[in-house]
C-alpha cells in the first residue's frame, strides 16, 4: 500500500512538471502583459517594473527562477494585487472554493446515487426513462450555460435568490446547483448501469432465492458492489467540479480561487495564474490517488501491494 502510494506520488512529479512548463510558456505567448493599461506607462517606468519583477531576464531564466521558488514553497508575488503574495491569495480563496466544491460533490453523490438506484430498480419504467433523459441533458449542457440560465430565471425573473456574492446561505444555492448538475447526471447514469448489472448477478439471485427481502438484498449486497464505478469516477468528478468552479465562481462573483484564475488570466497576472494552475494540478492528482485508494478498500478484488 505504502509502496503503491509512493510510486503514484513519484509518477505525479513529471505530470506536474509538464503542467507547470505548459502553463508557464503558454501564458507568455498571450499578447499584453501585467503592466499594460489604458494609461500607458512611460518606457523607463516600464523598464523599472520589468526589472522589479525579473521580467527583463531571458524566459528560461525566469522559468528556472519560478521552479526554484516552487521548490521552496514560494509562489511569488502577485503582479496585479501588489500587496499580496500568490500563496496568500490562494490560501485565502481556497476555503471558499472548498466549501462550494465540497457541498456540490456531496450533493451530487447523494442525489446521483439515489436517482441511479431508483431508475435501476424500475428499469424500463417511465421513471427510468425520465430520469435518464434528464441526466443526458445534464451531461450535455455545460455549466457555463446552466449558470447564466439559473441567474436569469431564478435570480432575475423570479427574484428568488441572489445572483451573486458570498456570505449568506442563500448565496450557495445557485452556484452549487450549477456545479453539481452535470455530476448528478453522470453519477446517476453510472449507478444505474452498474446496479442493473449487479442485480442480475448470481450472488444477488442467491440472496433472493434464500428468501431475503428485496430491500435487504439491495441495501446489504447490491449497493456496495454497484457503487464501485462511482468511486472510481470520483477522481474525474472532483476534477470536473474544480474546473467547473473556475467558470461558476466568475459568473456568481464568488471570492474563491477559480475567480482568481479567470481574473489573473485577463490581467496577465503570470504568477497568480501559475500558482492556481499548480495548486489545481496537485489537487486533482491527489484526489485521483485518494479515489483509487478508496476503491481498494471497497473492492476486495483490488489489492495494492
Amino acid at each position, binding site marked *: 500500500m505504502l509502496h503503491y502510494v509512493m510510486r503514484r506520488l513519484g509518477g505525479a512529479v513529471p505530470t506536474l512538471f509538464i503542467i507547470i512548463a505548459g502553463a508557464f510558456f503558454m501564458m507568455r505567448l*498571450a*499578447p*499584453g*502583459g501585467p*503592466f*499594460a*493599461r*489604458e*494609461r*500607458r*506607462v*512611460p*518606457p*523607463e*517606468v516600464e523598464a*523599472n*517594473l520589468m*526589472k*522589479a519583477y525579473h521580467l527583463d531576464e531571458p524566459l528560461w531564466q525566469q522559468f528556472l527562477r519560478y521552479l526554484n521558488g516552487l521548490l521552496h514553497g514560494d509562489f511569488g*508575488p502577485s503582479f*496585479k*494585487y*501588489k*500587496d*499580496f*503574495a500568490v500563496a496568500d*491569495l490562494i490560501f*485565502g*480563496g481556497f476555503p471558499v472554493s472548498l466549501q462550494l466544491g465540497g457541498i456540490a460533490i456531496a450533493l451530487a453523490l447523494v442525489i446521483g446515487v439515489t436517482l441511479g438506484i431508483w431508475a435501476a430498480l424500475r428499469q424500463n419504467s417511465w421513471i427510468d426513462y425520465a430520469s435518464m433523459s434528464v441526466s443526458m441533458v445534464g451531461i450535455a449542457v455545460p455549466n457555463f450555460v446552466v449558470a447564466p440560465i439559473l441567474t436569469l430565471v431564478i435570480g432575475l425573473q423570479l427574484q428568488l435568490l*441572489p*445572483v*451573486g*456574492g*458570498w*456570505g449568506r*446561505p442563500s448565496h450557495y444555492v445557485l452556484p452549487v446547483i450549477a456545479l453539481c448538475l452535470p455530476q448528478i447526471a453522470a453519477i446517476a447514469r453510472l449507478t444505474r448501469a452498474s446496479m442493473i448489472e449487479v442485480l442480475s448477478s448470481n450472488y444477488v439471485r442467491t440472496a433472493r432465492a434464500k428468501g431475503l427481502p428485496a430491500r435487504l438484498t439491495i441495501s446489504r449486497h447490491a449497493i456496495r458492489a454497484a457503487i464501485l464505478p462511482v468511486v472510481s469516477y470520483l477522481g474525474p468528478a472532483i476534477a470536473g467540479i474544480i474546473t467547473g468552479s473556475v467558470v461558476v465562481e466568475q459568473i456568481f*462573483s464568488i*471570492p474563491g480561487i477559480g*475567480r*482568481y484564475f479567470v481574473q489573473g488570466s*485577463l*490581467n*496577465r497576472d503570470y504568477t497568480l495564474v501559475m500558482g492556481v494552475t499548480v495548486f489545481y494540478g496537485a489537487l486533482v492528482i491527489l484526489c485521483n490517488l485518494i479515489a483509487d485508494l478508496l476503491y481498494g478498500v471497497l473492492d476486495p478484488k483490488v489489492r495494492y501491494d
Partner: protein
Amino acid sequence: MSLMKRNVLLSALTAATLILASTAAQAEMVLHRGNGAEPETMDPQKSTGVTEANIQYEIFEGLTTYSPDGEVVPGMAEKWDVSDDGKTYTFHLRDAKWSNGDPVTAEDFVYSFQRLVDPAIAADYAPIADPILNAEQIRKGEEKDLTKLGVKAVDAKTFEVTLARPAPYFLGLIRHNTFLPVHKATVEKFGQDWTKPGNMVGNGAFTMESWTPQASMALAKSPSYYDAANVKLDKIVYYPTEDISEEFKRYRAGELHITYEVPSDQIKFIEANMKDEYEAKPYLGTYYYVVNGTREAGSKKEVREALALAIDREAIAEKVTGGSFLPGYSWVPPGMIGYKTQYVSFKDMPKQQRIAKAKELLAAAGYGPDNPLNMEILYNTSENHKKIAIAVQSMWKAIGVNATLNNQEWQVYLDTRDEKQFDVARAGWIGDFADPVTFLDLFLSDAGVRNDAGYNNPEYDKLVKNSFGIGDPETRLASLQRAEQIFLNDLPIIPILTYKTKHMVSKKVQGWAYNNLDFHLGRYMSVQ
C-alpha cells in the same frame, strides 16, 4: 424529520444572530460603499486606480486635501507660502499624529516623495512628480542620488518643495493619492506586508480594520486623527463591485449606501422610481475615438473632420447610453476651474448641414461612391463600447463610409493600440487632477505610446510646453486654450462623449456633495 428540525433550529439561530447583528449595527454608524474593482494595492506610491485612491484618502491625508465639493483645502499642511517665481513651496505642517502615535513630520513627506520617483519602487505614476526639481532625471535613472530630489525638511514641521518649473496647479496636483505620506518605520519593518491590517499605519481619519480580497475592506475611525471630533462615521466598509448590475441589486436590497457605478440599462427605471437617489454629474473625462494618423486615410484632415462631423453625439449620449454620458465637443472636458472650454468648430452647426459638409470633405479627400472609405473601429470587450461602435458605424454609413467593427479582449486591444495597428480605436481619458495639462500633454509629439494618434504639430507642442514656464495662471491657461483650439482644429482624435460620475446615494447618507474629481471623503459623511 430530524433533519427538518435541525434546519428549523438552524434558521432560528441565523435569524437570532442577524437580529443581534443589526442591533449592534445601530449602535455604531457604518457606511457601506461599493468600490468597483478590487484595489490592486494600498501602497499609495504604487497605486494607479481610482478604487485605490478612494480608500487611501480615508487612511492617509496629504499636504492638501479635498473639501466635500472638491476645493483644495489644507490637509497636513496648515498653511503654505509660494515664492515669487512660483518655484518654491513651503508647507507648514500642523500638529498631527500617525495612527501609532508618532508625530507626522516633514521627514515623512521627504521619504514619501522620494519613494514615488525611486526607480526601485517602480511606481507607475512616477511621472506625475515631474514638475519637482530632478524628479524626471531620478525616475529615468539619469540621477542616481535620491536626495537630489527638490524636497527638503527645513525642520520637523516645515517641508519645502523646489520645482523644476512653475506649476500653478501644484497644490491640486499633490492631492493625487500617489503623494500621500507613508510611515517610514512601518514600510521598512514589514516590507510588502506593511499594508496588511494590523501592520498598516496611516495619518488619515480612518484606519484599516480588515481586508478580505474580493470580499470587503473595513475601515474604523481613527482616534488619533487631528479632526477626529468632527468625524461622525465609526466605520466604513468598502466592497469590490465589479459587476455593476449586482452592485445595483445590493443597493436596492439596502446592503450598500453608495454605489460605484450605475448600470446604464437601469437608468430609465431609476429616473422613474428613485430619481432623488441618483447622482449623475459631469466628470473630468472624455470618451473619444483615436484616428490613426500614421495610416493613409487617417492622415488626411478632411477625412478626420468628416468622420467627426457625422457622429450625432446627442443621439449617442441620450439614446445609446441612456443618458449615462454627456455629448462631448471638447478634448479637455468642461469644469476645469479658470479654463475656458474649447469646442470643435461645428458644435452649433445643424445636423443636416454637418452631414452635407462631411460628404463634401470626403469627396475632396478623394472618397466617394466609386472609391468608398473603409474604416475599422477597434474597441475592447464591453457592452457600452459595442453599442456606441454600432451607432457610429451606422452614422458613418450615412456619409458613405464602410465601417467594420473589431472587438478585442482588453490586453490584446492595448497591444494593438500601442502598435498602431488600427484605423480608428475607442479610448477614454480621465484627468488625474483638475488642470487641462493632464489632458493636453498626452498629445505632445514626444509623449511616446500615449500619443496613439501619432499627432505631431510643432505649434501645439510649443504652446503646451511654453505654458510649463508661465507662472501667471491666466496667461498660462490662455496659452493652453490656444493649444486646444489648434488641436480641435486638427482633430487627431474625435471627441464623442464627456463622462459622468454616476452613483446611487441612499437618502440615509448625509454630507455627500458633488465634485467633478469624484472623491468623497468619509470624514465629511454620516449615516442616519
